[in-house]
């Protein structure tokens, strides 16, 4: 065991854990976070995704000792009670079914839009491809990423939210 310091959602934590412990278990079991989830432990599914300095990383295979930046989990995405536009689009489009994978979907989408604020449909499909959903909500996810991109563009241009309520 050794002391490990982690910056998570704006707070600094010092923890006494084995340095090889995958970040996932520290976030879930020591910090009580619910966003990142165990899906495969093999970097194959994306359920455990967190952002490290804004980049989507798989916490199931990332030892705590190798974390080299600020961690944001799903819980940390919304600030001051305001949902992030990606989260808002997820609610407006009623994306989740069971929801187990959606942590990875939302954070991957957020990182994608930070890199590429106006992706083509093909870039959305490719950018999201590594995150699996067994409820098969891909179709709604892709639409919601597009809607979130539109909302973020409208926010950035100061023209206010351009979203209509999407209840189909």
């Amino acid at each position, binding site marked *: *065991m050794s002391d490990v310091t982690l910056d998570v959602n704006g707070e600094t934590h010092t923890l006494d854990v*084995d340095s090889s*412990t*995958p970040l996932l*278990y520290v976030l*879930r*079991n020591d910090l009580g*976070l*619910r*966003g990142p*989830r*165990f*899906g*495969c*432990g*093999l970097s*194959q*599914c994306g*359920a455990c995704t967190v952002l490290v300095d804004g980049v989507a990383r798989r916490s199931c295979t990332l030892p705590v000792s190798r974390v080299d930046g600020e961690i944001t*989990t*799903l*819980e940390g*995405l*919304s600030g001051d*009670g*305001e*949902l992030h536009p990606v989260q*808002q689009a*997820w*609610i407006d489009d*009623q*994306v*989740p*079914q*069971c*929801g*187990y994978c*959606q*942590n990875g979907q*939302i954070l991957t989408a957020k990182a994608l839009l930070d890199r590429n604020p106006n992706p083509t*449909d093909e870039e*959305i*499909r*490719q950018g*999201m*491809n*590594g*995150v*699996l*959903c*067994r*409820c*098969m*909500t*891909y*179709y*709604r996810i*892709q639409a919601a990423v597009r809607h979130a991109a539109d909302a973020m563009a409208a926010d950035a241009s100061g023209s206010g939210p351009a979203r209509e309520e999407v*209840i*189909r």
Partner: protein
Amino acid sequence: MSHLSEIPKELADALDTFNGTTSRRDFLKSSGLFVLSFSGTGLLDTPGPDSGEASGAPENGTAAPYPEPDFRLLDSWLVVHEDSTATFYVGKTDGGQGTGTAFRQMMCDELDIAFEKSTLVMGRTDMTVDQGGSGGSDAIERDGWAVRRVAAEARRVLLEMASGRLGVPMDELAVSDGLISIPRDPSRTVTYGELVGGRRFDVMLTGSNVNATTGVASVKPVQDLKIVGQSLPRYDIPGKVDGSLEWAVDVRLPDMVHARNVRPPVAGAKRISIDESSVRDLSGFIRVVSRGNYVAVVCEREEQAIEAASRLEVQWEKPATKSFPSSEDLFDYLRNATPMSPARGRGSRTATREQGNTEQAMAAATTVVEAEYDFPFQGHTAIGPAHGLADPSDGQMTIYTNDMKPYSLRTGVAEFLDMPPEQVRVIWMDGPQLYGRTAADDAGFEAAFLAKEIGRPVRVQWMRHEETAWDTKGPAFAFTLRGGLDDEGNLIALDYRARVADYAHVGYNQPDTVLIAQLMGIRPSRPASGGASAPAEMYAIPNRRQETSVVRFPRAFETPLRTGNLRDPGGPQVTFASESFIDEMAVAANADPVEFRLRLLRASSEEDRVFMRARSIAVVEAAAEAYDWDTRPSGKAVGSDRILTGRGVAYAYRARTAIAEIAEVEVDRETGRVWVKRMVCAHDCGLVINPDGLRSTIQGNLLHGLSRALYEEVQFDTEMVTSVDWRTHPTLRHVDAPETIDIVIVNGDPEPDRPDLPPYGAGEPSHRPVAAAVANAIYDATGVRLRRAPFRAERVLAALEAAGV
């Protein structure tokens, strides 16, 4: 009538202590949605039976015993609070298809309160009546009636109370959103909360079983339903999007420890010895628990248990004989095996049905076509592997699970551990999707067994390789079909034969078939064979013969090829064969495949109770119209383009729901990749409670169907399943999603306005025709008929090359 003594203790406690719900609620401002606050430990925020506010930990909410709530008491189903809000208690679960929202819609409509003024507790064996949990797409179709009648009865009783209090006959009262008024004297009103808030109704219901539960009141006619039929947003989504919802995987109890299983390396291996010294010095190690061939390691921390399980040295002895054929030899094996005789085995059967004289008609036919189809074993492979948490404190057992059948988990575990059922309770919480008999059952039993052994709360979760290899499988099928056309291209004879590898079909939460029991050497006297129903269509074919037989493998127990219900059990397999074959017959008749099907549907006017013929015709027509179907025989001329396109149709019904689907494919002739670019689904499930929820469910069904049609196949050699992760049991991904999905919600009922128009199941039916629609579209695009699923690129490429395309 007063039957206070029959009210469950917890419900009585809750009613005594409950004093309004406002403080426990939280309006999620950003979404405008009304949700339960799941802050802190979560469970206790749910107003209701064990919501003693003083208690800080959900696990200790109330002490055992945990008797079953009595379905004949109105108070078991519904509590009205002082602020005229209500909490509903429903013995079902929601796997992410919005059934919880739909229940609230139905119950609010009958009770006459706004949707936002309701909350819902689902699937807690100590708080909700035993409606069996989920399964069979019956939540709305069957259980919806009981909850509607119960809510309607509550409304009637409230009106009766108001009549007494206001001194006005019931028929002179009006109700709106929990407020009862006198239209001719608007100054006098009384609210639901004032009448019964925080107190019991003390009203008995009747009905010989939970599904028949009813009061005196009748449900509202369809025309009077206002909340039903609206696309209300699901209440559970905000908490799933902001990370606040507490799931079964999230529950953490004081003193809790973590376990991981160590599985036999091959099916049927016998444990010889365990070298505990291989893990004893690992930090956090607590114990190796083993009985028979069941082995688990328990550690203080989760990652320690994972590490210890992977390091534990166990000596196993392989069985002397092969357990099953390899996945490559599977279909030859199924075809050449001697099927089980109907006399042997519990419930086993070789079921044959014949109408007309199939052989005679076949002999008289102008054209006879014969084809064989193969469909492999497929897994549930939940995105989150099976898990369970069990708390053994104070001689009771509380299991936190996402198992869709908490009630049988409770009774099964009680029997397995030899505990009185009253000492066991199961708390259902959200979890990864469940479409049938998954390993959630097995993990719940394992957690409870380990908790009892260790004497502390134990959380267990399967690893990915266990989930993929050892979860129950949807069985493999080998089909042989023959059809005969007369000289006018009419299908006059159809011979359907199916062989299914469903010899040891495990049921839900059976203490003698869950994996841990099998590994301990516990088993039923005989394996229970499953089987499959014949194709579900309304085609009028004068002579037809149908035979389904079950084939056994050498190993029935302790096998990773144990079979169980997987979404629409048997449906995708059977419909792949039957609807591919109908397409082949249409080609032989040189007929358009939509026309050919409509002709077969219209060849009779015989109707059944649910108008299945009329509704079948309506969905086929609606799908063709939505797609803008180009009428012509399938099998376009293949040009020189790299990408070949085509369209295919398939139709089926499931129970009382009719579906027709059209797939449009692009086949890359250089790589063999198939992309389903567009899907159309015409869907008739009668009355729709929440149209957007239905669309979401159908979209999931379609894509899951595509995944099974294009990718999923369990692979194995003769001793072990070799599919262990997402590479070896691939699934549909983002790039595979169709560009367009068009869903047409049809109501083909010839009497669409009848007041009691029923809703039918929608959780699975649209899953059924997908593989056939895709295969038929591939044929249209390439002229090549794929008769073995899944249509993975390498297999498609090989078929195209063999055909010279």
